[in-house]
């Protein structure tokens, strides 16, 4: 959900830019939008729907996450020629690599879990196991492959929102905001014309 706030902020900024510059808010046409829905389905069942996620087997969670991310990778590569989608692809790949390297779930350190859930009972989670019904697996840094790509970042203590995120998440958020901001500058062909000194009417 937190990443959606970034999308909302990027959209608001891009729309404001279009309004101020009096240009149309121009988004590219996406290929294979249906694949996005298909890609999201495994995660919807495994991690999001309250009805299914509580009973979803831990052994199948990695398959759900990895298959979903692979389909997302196919989708983003199909749209790689769209502006800034290379950054989305990079963020996704960084997340996918660390997930694959650690058994199919995103690693999170025990210290981070204690920071996020200070009131959790002692037996609520354990090292080496999936964290609740989410996408994470609790692993100490020394047992985490590519730990620098894991959910190792968090916001300052004064932030009302506390969550752990990875370098890949940062790139995804920046990419989404950048794409939505960029759309406020008008269509690409109009920008190309202005860049070469000829204004397209």
């Amino acid at each position, binding site marked *: 959900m937190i990443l959606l706030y970034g999308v909302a902020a990027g*959209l608001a900024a891009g729309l404001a830019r279009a309004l101020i510059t009096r240009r149309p808010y121009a988004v590219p046409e*996406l290929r294979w*939008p249906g694949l*996005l829905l298909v890609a999201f389905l495994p995660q919807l069942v495994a991690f999001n729907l309250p009805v299914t996620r509580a009973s979803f087997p831990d052994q199948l969670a990695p398959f759900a996450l990895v298959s979903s991310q692979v389909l997302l990778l196919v989708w983003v590569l199909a749209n790689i020629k769209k502006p800034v989608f290379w950054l989305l692809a990079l963020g996704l790949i960084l997340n996918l690599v660390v997930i694959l390297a650690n058994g199919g779930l995103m690693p999170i350190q025990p210290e981070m879990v204690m920071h996020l859930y200070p009131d959790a009972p002692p037996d609520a989670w354990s090292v080496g196991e999936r964290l609740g*019904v989410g*996408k994470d697996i609790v692993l100490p840094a020394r047992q985490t492959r590519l730990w620098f790509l894991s959910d190792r970042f968090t916001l300052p203590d004064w932030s009302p929102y506390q969550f752990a995120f990875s370098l890949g998440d940062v790139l995804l958020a920046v990419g989404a905001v950048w794409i939505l901001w960029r759309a406020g500058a008008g269509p690409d062909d109009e920008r190309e014309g202005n860049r070469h000194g000829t204004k397209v009417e």
Partner: protein
Amino acid sequence: MNKLSQHVVLASGKMNSQTVRVILFVLSLGLFVIAAGAPECPGGFGG
């Protein structure tokens, strides 16, 4: 008058299709970001 009404129809159709395109794009991007990102948020812990 006929030409004016034709322009209005064309303009409103174009505006609506552009709006729909933006909405679908933003929804697609939002869905992608949610699925591709893996931030651990409090609330995903419980059942």
